[in-house]
């Protein structure tokens, strides 16, 4: 642990701290509305990364699959909580988000791990899973928000279908289709522009860490494919299972406020 801590670069961290401090000071002086939030977000981000770094250090040193799985479970729980809070604070919404993110993540990671697409060592498993979980979380939140607002707008049409004895899945058909499209836009854009508009995070990290550009590109392609599938699976699950969240047992539209 002390060796790992010793690898931190005090000069780089110090210079970064000074620069960020100067930018924050400028924001306060300009009385920008986001100044306080930026300061707190910066502190929160630094604290979270420091904690995450320490936890990963511990998990990498122990190097046991059960510990990695426990950490991934915790990440899925936090992701579900974060996605659900974008909608409301009901336990049902949390359970729904947990189901979507958990199933989407599991459906990607388990076959990939079994096929040894990546090693089952924590230093592979955790960052790759983290990216998959993060994208499943974003797609779930986006799909939930989009579907809820579309159902609100189209309430009369959905209820007109229901009034004719039609099932909720058919009744919300066009809302589900537009939700699926909207939820896939960020990962599709990311696939289209990668390597042209930006060098993605993981590739940047590998290049900074001294890996060959082709190796970094191969790993990045794997990740981009996996996160696209994560978004697709999550959004599909949200739209296919939405009747459980947005309809009563007697199939009446019941949208959270």
């Amino acid at each position, binding site marked *: 642990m002390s060796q790992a801590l010793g690898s931190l670069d005090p000069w780089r961290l110090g210079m970064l701290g000074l620069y960020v401090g100067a930018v924050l000071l400028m924001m306060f002086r300009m009385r920008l509305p986001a100044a306080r939030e930026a300061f707190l977000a910066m502190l929160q981000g630094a604290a979270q990364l420091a904690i995450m770094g320490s936890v990963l250090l511990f998990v990498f040193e122990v190097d046991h699959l059960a510990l990695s799985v426990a950490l991934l479970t915790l990440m899925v729980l936090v992701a579900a909580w974060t996605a659900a809070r974008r909608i409301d604070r009901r336990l049902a919404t949390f359970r729904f988000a947990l189901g979507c993110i958990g199933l989407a993540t599991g459906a990607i990671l388990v076959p990939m791990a079994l096929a040894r697409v990546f090693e089952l060592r924590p230093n592979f498993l955790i960052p790759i899973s983290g990216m998959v979980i993060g994208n499943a979380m974003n797609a779930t939140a986006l799909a939930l928000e989009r579907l809820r607002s579309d159902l609100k707008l189209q309430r009369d049409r959905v209820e*007109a*279908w229901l009034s004719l004895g039609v099932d909720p899945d058919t009744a919300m058909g066009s809302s589900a289709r537009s939700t699926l499209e909207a939820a896939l836009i960020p990962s599709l854009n990311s696939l289209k522009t990668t390597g042209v508009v930006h060098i993605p995070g993981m590739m940047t990290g590998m290049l900074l860490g001294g890996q060959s550009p082709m190796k970094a590109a191969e790993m990045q392609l794997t990740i981009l494919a996996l996160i696209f599938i994560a978004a697709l699976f999550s959004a599909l699950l949200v739209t296919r299972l939405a009747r459980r969240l947005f309809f009563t047992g*007697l*199939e*009446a539209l019941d949208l959270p406020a």
Partner: protein
Amino acid sequence: MEGLRVENLSVRKGGSEILHGISLQVALGERVGLVGGSGAGKTTLLRALVALEPDFSGILTWRGSPLAELGPRAWRRTLVLVGQRPAMFEGTVAENVLVAARHHGLEVEVQGLLRDLDLAGAGDREAQALSEGERQRVALARALAIRPAMLLLDEPTSALDEDRVRMVEELLARTPVGWILVSHDPAQVRRLTDRQIRLEGGSQVPSSNGGRP
């Protein structure tokens, strides 16, 4: 013969009760008016009768079978709600009339239905571009196409001119179904119903003769 039976139906919205313990019976083929001032709960009651209100309690049975036993889809095919401002589906007028019937595997003579409602030339028009009066007639055709046993009509002719009101009333009169009708026009309620149930402030006003005229 027993048709719809409602016992102690209450509806809650936004944390407060807006319909209080409504009980009523409508025999098979019977035509009943639902009257009361604005905000009395008439539309909410019609919606609750087809379980479109998410938070309601009480017992609903059709010919002795409870709603939960029949299931919401079979229930809503039997008692069909026709709203005051009906939403149109994507596609043409004819497609709107046919789509739910086809979903239920029913054959429909769509031209006949459209003719009866003075929509004979409108079959190929885009339904979402129709006027409110045309929409009301398409919604009625859409409901009749799935052959319900009872219609729940919420101001079905509020956007129609006099001639078309008469046309709709004549079509209804020769249709072998019962209904519960909400209308702002007391004369229409008298013309189209055998008796009336009155609501005030979400409660049923007791009637000395059971609502019979």
